[in-house]
């Protein structure tokens, strides 16, 4: 029961954190009209994952291991790209928000609207298939195929429910803090989350042997932070921290955090500087790979 609960919690947190920040951002920046797009993306990802998972579980054909890992891995890395874009977009529009360029915001939002759907979809969908397969397995157990216990399904459902609840609480907390702090903190959190997702995606690809180096571990703290424990679950669910991390994961994480954080805080500093110049020059550094 507890173990299944923790799986549900972990998978749930992985999906909710990005979505919650996105929702909080839209609410704070007073663009509630874009919320349906986010929820649409979430709903689509949930529906596709559940349908695809059911098809693979109950249908005539299953999915090969390499294919499943590659889906998870590629989607994760694509998700990183979109979350990174989102962080920078938020940072830039924070500047516009603090100024009086409302018109420009709407232009950015129009371009970003389509992407919002994708961010929400990817955040939920990248691990959606694995979660769906897990949930259907629990459903099978509850339905009595080879088992007949509702315990695992109940546990998984409670875990997912807890993740949603935690997400809601995080949202309530996030919308209360002031705008400048909000952008700085959520941006930094998102970068850490995205770095974890990047590492996770790379690990999936290593497992599928698309990338090498699965056995070259940078560190293994599984004995201190057990993957099945509460702390392991929370760390994995939020930051995608893996107790046994390969060198490729570790190096990618450090590089990503190093580069993205630098760019992000440079943008934030720029935002906080009293703005006399028009927005155009301020945008260039964020976009260029400096």
């Amino acid at each position, binding site marked *: 029961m507890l*173990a299944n609960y923790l799986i549900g919690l972990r998978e749930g947190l992985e999906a909710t954190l990005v979505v919650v920040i996105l929702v909080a951002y839209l609410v704070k920046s007073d663009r509630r009209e874009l919320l349906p797009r986010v929820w649409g993306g979430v709903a689509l990802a949930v529906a596709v994952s559940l349908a695809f998972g059911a098809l693979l579980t109950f249908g005539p054909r299953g999915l090969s291991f390499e294919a499943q890992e590659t889906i998870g891995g590629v989607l994760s890395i694509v998700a990183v790209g979109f979350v990174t874009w989102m962080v920078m977009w938020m940072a830039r529009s924070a500047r516009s928000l603090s100024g009086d360029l409302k018109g420009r915001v709407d232009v950015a939002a129009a371009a970003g609207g389509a992407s919002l*759907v994708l961010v929400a979809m990817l955040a939920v969908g990248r691990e959606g298939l694995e979660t769906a397969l897990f949930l259907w397995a629990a459903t099978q157990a509850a339905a009595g195929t080879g088992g007949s216990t509702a315990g695992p399904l109940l546990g998984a459902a409670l875990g997912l429910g807890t993740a949603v609840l935690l997400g809601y609480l995080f949202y309530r907390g996030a919308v209360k803090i002031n705008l400048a702090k909000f952008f700085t903190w959520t941006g930094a959190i998102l970068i850490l989350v995205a770095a974890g997702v990047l590492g996770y995606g790379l690990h999936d690809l290593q497992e599928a042997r698309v990338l090498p180096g699965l056995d070259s571990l940078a560190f293994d703290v*599984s004995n201190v932070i057990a993957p*099945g424990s509460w702390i392991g679950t929370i760390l994995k669910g939020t930051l995608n921290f893996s107790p046994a991390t390969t060198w490729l994961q570790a190096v990618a994480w450090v590089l990503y955090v190093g580069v993205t954080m630098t760019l992000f805080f440079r943008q934030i500093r720029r935002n906080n500087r009293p703005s006399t110049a028009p927005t155009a020059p301020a945008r260039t550094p964020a976009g260029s790979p400096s």
Partner: protein
Amino acid sequence: MKNRRLAAALVAGVSLPALAACTDNSSSSSDATDGRTIAVTSSSDACDLSSDTAPSGRLVFTIKNTGQEVTEFYLYAADGKRIVAEVENIGPGLSRTLVVNADAATYVPACKPGMKGTGIRSELTVTESGGSGKASAAVQEQVDQANAAYREYVEDESGQLLAGTRRFVAAYTSGDDARARTLYPTVRVHWERIEPVAESFGDLDPKMDAREADLEAGQKWTGWHRIEKDLWPPSDQPYTALTKAERATYADQLLADTETLHGRIGKLTFTVDQIGNGAKSLLDEVATGKVTGEEEIWSHTDLYDFQANIDGARVAFEGLRPVLKQKDPALESEIADRFTALESMLAQYRVGADGFVSYEKLDTTQVKQLSDAVNALSEPLSKLTAAVTL
């Protein structure tokens, strides 16, 4: 409009390659037919595989977590490092399946309860089964038919065994020894026809069919042969007849075990290799027990059992015959001829419609003849499984 197109493109982008990488699910009939499904039980301190060998091609692992922690199942290459396939998030009480296209090689399966460490490892040998190991549609249909027909046969025999045992037990407990002695060999025929299936239940077979000579230290002797001795008490050694209460005890137990057996058999399904190996092991039963007269040492009704074992093997063979005819016609006609030879030799000893002479009536030359005929059949029959599963 734009975001809908994007979303649709993403859905397609994810699902199309995924569908292209699909593999058949465990529910498809072909898995059950050729030993390609391996049940894995992952507990907190063990990782049991239902088989440590498998044919190359598509394999389906069904991993059940019976422990308290979340577990994972990995199939590593022989080096124990390269992951061939894995499945994660197997919560307690859950079963997940893993489909693998495995080449002939040695693999290292591992369960990781608690999701850490190198896992509880063992070894899995995948043997060459000829290409992908997938049967053509026509052959597959024959295989399915063979499996279904054999299942029906086993269930029917088991049902007759149960009905017969009821009659036998009733006669025996009521003291009608003459009737019990008549029923004994004819009811046991149903047991002997499906003996390998019954023996596959390791807990029932020793309770139901143990011979006195084979008892292990401390094992209580019960079942058919215990009652046999009581019905045909030995004249050359002191024997105390069972009391009425003792008779009832043994009889009730035999009936209860037969009921359990019948219940379990109802849930069985069979695969081609089980049927083929079953035929072979029936022949082995004949060679080691019946031809030597050791099986029915008190009643000497060995020839009934002999015939019944041959019947069971023949049914198994006939079921697989259409498949074998396509794959190895020479072997098919050889086995058929040897069956006929053995059956006609055995027919010399028939008495009445379905009876046989006492084993004691056979002289050593006749026993030798029978034994040779059994071996002559046993040899090509041992190639049956390999021939039909290739």
